[in-house]
């Protein structure tokens, strides 16, 4: 390989076919005289502009587009050298760091010698060693192209905002499960808003046996094993549900607050009393109607109960997860849009409450397709405000434009799967820790189950890895019509 050009933090390197360099690979451009080296990542592989190639190609096709038939008697065997030159490639590389005195710095301000620099591929283990990516709490993400493992440190996810995104069916949920079980393994408390009911079986192996996480996975299904009594609810949480999930106007909210306090003082805070109180409320007809419609939403959700025995104490589940680690899976499958919002609002309110009272130290929150159960603006609030309470969110989505730009700007880690759509790539490239060229170039060519990891977990050295298999029972697979049809045909 030979250094050809440097423009800003972009390096252009000439590479020959035998050198076998691909997108995503790292190169070490070593200038021995200067006693330093550049670490650059290949973000695009193009044909080198070899003079005469066009003529070479054109003269093989002069016969009406069909290759002209013939024989080359090449006694000196020059032809392999011609193809060798013809297939030379131009590697467009992004400079990631300078290595000098055993230290890495993000500088790209110096110019290595074009003629004397030695360019070689930098293996992932060597890169990880130089960048000190591995830590005391390793999480193996998967295998890299050079058959080494990409291992990140769980503490690099601590206190961070993460985004897992990519187009449908490329393995996002699989990666979030992998992160989740590893966090649980390190005794972390994890809460998952499970839209498709695919996380509840994480405690089972693929052949249906219990695995080591079995006792740490707590699945709560609203209106089935997850109900709450009004008496257990703090007013702030209820107001959150009414205002944010059910969009109760301000005047009605004030009236409801007054009503709630009155019932609380009288020790009559239950669904039946609340319904009667609203019915008998002496106020503006519109206010009463607004409160009545929200009350009916409460009733229809099946999430609220007057039977204390039926009510699940979320605090207890948190407590179980607190000491030994655990995942609280909020199963939102088969839950209507309104009910989902009520449940999510309740859980978030409860989380803030528990964290602010130091009942919990911190929580890793995994939110799949978050836009389906909470307003975008509200997530912005969670990311900026609730982070200080100790809620560290991971968004999982196949529609990156449903996440606000402000969230991307704050993202510490991005796990990016394949995207072909330019618009999607544009959205993702707004993240502060990502450069647009890398995202556009590498993400477009990622094969299924391959993930480009960006951000703090990889010390800002984007690395591509094939996400490793996880021996858990998968529930997130798309149900297909023709699979059965094919099976029947075979029979």
């Amino acid at each position, binding site marked *: 390989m030979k250094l050809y050009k440097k423009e800003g933090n972009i390096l252009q390197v000439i590479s020959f076919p035998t050198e076998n360099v691909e997108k995503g690979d790292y190169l070490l451009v070593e200038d021995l005289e200067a006693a330093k080296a550049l670490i650059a990542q290949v973000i695009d592989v193009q044909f080198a502009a070899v*003079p005469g*190639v066009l003529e070479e190609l054109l003269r093989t096709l002069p016969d009406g587009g069909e290759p002209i038939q013939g024989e080359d008697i090449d006694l000196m065997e020059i032809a392999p050298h011609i193809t060798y030159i013809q297939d030379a490639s131009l590697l467009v590389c992004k400079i990631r760091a300078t290595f000098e005195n055993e230290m890495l710095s993000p500088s790209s301000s110096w110019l290595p010698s074009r003629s004397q620099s030695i360019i070689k591929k930098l293996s992932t283990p060597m890169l990880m060693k130089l960048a000190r990516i591995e830590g005391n709490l390793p999480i193996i993400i998967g295998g890299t192209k050079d058959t080494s493992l990409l291992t990140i440190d769980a503490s690099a996810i601590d206190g961070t905002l993460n985004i897992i995104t990519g187009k449908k069916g490329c393995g996002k949920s699989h990666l979030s499960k992998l992160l989740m079980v590893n966090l649980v393994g390190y005794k972390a408390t994890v809460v998952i808003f499970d839209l498709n009911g695919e996380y509840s079986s994480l405690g089972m192996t693929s052949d249906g046996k219990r695995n080591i996480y079995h006792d740490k996975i707590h699945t709560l299904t609203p209106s089935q094993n997850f109900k709450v009594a009004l008496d257990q609810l703090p007013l702030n949480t209820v107001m959150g549900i009414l205002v944010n999930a059910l969009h109760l106007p301000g005047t009605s909210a004030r009236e409801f607050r007054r009503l709630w306090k009155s019932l609380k003082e009288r020790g009559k805070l239950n669904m039946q009393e609340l319904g009667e109180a609203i019915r008998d409320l002496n106020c503006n007809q519109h206010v009463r109607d607004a409160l009545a419609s929200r009350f009916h939403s409460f009733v229809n959700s099946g999430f609220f109960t007057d039977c204390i025995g039926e009510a699940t104490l979320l605090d207890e589940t948190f407590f179980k997860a607190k000491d030994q680690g655990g995942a609280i899976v909020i199963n939102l499958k088969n839950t209507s849009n309104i009910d989902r919002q009520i449940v999510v609002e309740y859980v978030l309110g409860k989380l803030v409450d528990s964290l602010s009272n130091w009942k919990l130290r911190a929580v890793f929150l995994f939110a799949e397709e978050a836009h389906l159960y909470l307003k975008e603006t509200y997530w912005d609030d969670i990311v900026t405000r609730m982070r200080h309470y100790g809620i560290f969110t991971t968004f999982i989505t196949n529609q990156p434009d449903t996440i606000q730009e402000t969230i991307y700007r704050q993202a510490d880690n991005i796990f990016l799967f394949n995207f072909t759509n330019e618009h999607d790539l544009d959205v993702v490239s707004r993240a502060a820790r990502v450069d647009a060229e890398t995202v556009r170039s590498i993400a477009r060519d990622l094969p299924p189950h391959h993930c480009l990891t960006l951000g703090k977990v990889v010390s800002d050295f984007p690395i591509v890895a094939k996400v490793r298999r996880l021996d858990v029972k998968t529930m997130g697979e798309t149900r297909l019509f023709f699979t059965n049809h094919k099976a029947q045909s075979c029979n």
Partner: protein
Amino acid sequence: MVIEQYTITNKYNFPQPNIDTILPQRFLEQSINSLNQVQHPLQLNHTTTPQFSTFNQNQSNLQIKQTPITLKPNRQETIIAAIDTSTIKIGETTKGIITAVRGATTWLQNHTYKYTRLGPFIFHITEDNKKELYNTLERSYFSKTFGSYNQINPTLLQMPTRISNLLERWLQTMLTKTIKNGVLLFDGSLTAGTPETPTVRLNEILSNARKNCSTVLAFSKATTLRSNGILITEQLPKYDPPYLLETEWIKPNSQMRLLGDVYVARLNRSNFAFRLDIDREIESTERIDAVNKLLGNDLYTQSYPETLRLSHILCTFTANEVLAIKHFINRKHGIQIINRPDMHRLLFGSFGFRGEAYA
């Protein structure tokens, strides 16, 4: 000698077998010999000079007959075959030059173009080896040498053209021996008696063609022949092409001999015409018939036969090939490419241009 590492391909894709491969073998041997003589350290200048295809530059006086010979395409299936060779200077060494030579034969049969390319052969030509190199190559195929080297001592820069010419004549000989009832297209003229083309040799080639009932048509891409002071290809009568214009009273210099009659050929409506030499030993009607067969079988956009154009295209060295040849000599023979400082640039800065003229 490291000849063992190279092997001769024992086949040659002409329409007929039994082709002598001695010349390519000698080319290969001499090529390797010459490259092995290179001693380190050695440098090549970075620039390459334009490649040459041989063309006639002799000056003569002649008259053009203004009555054109009308042509009518004859679609009787006929093999059209063409030959061209090319040479390029790859660079200079401290002792000489490194040059590459290649030849191409193209033929049209059953409405399909096919080709055979021979080479490239790379030679390191020095003042010390140029005589031996040339004579060895000449001896290897042609049963007797014509002393052409000794007649006129070529300069180093003339040597690539000489070697290329040798390869071209050999390819022409092969073609004339193998193709029957065909039309054979040569690049250049049928001028003999020059150091690189002895009369006997060209006569032998034309004679072979006649024996196999083939006709040689030699097209010159450029000519210096003038009639009344004007280039013969620029005196076209207002007449519908295709046609030929006959010439007469050619008076070549004492050493040169024209083995063909010279015509001006305008084959289609494009505004181009070319000098065409046709074997003068052939009957006039046969000559016209050969051109008619060419028109009936080959394409001739821009008034130039496609088969010959392909031969030229196929043997021409592209910049990519020059790079590959440099890579080859570096890998196989350890010859490093080192930029020699351009003295013009060095001394005269931006005024030190060469070969770039501002009109």
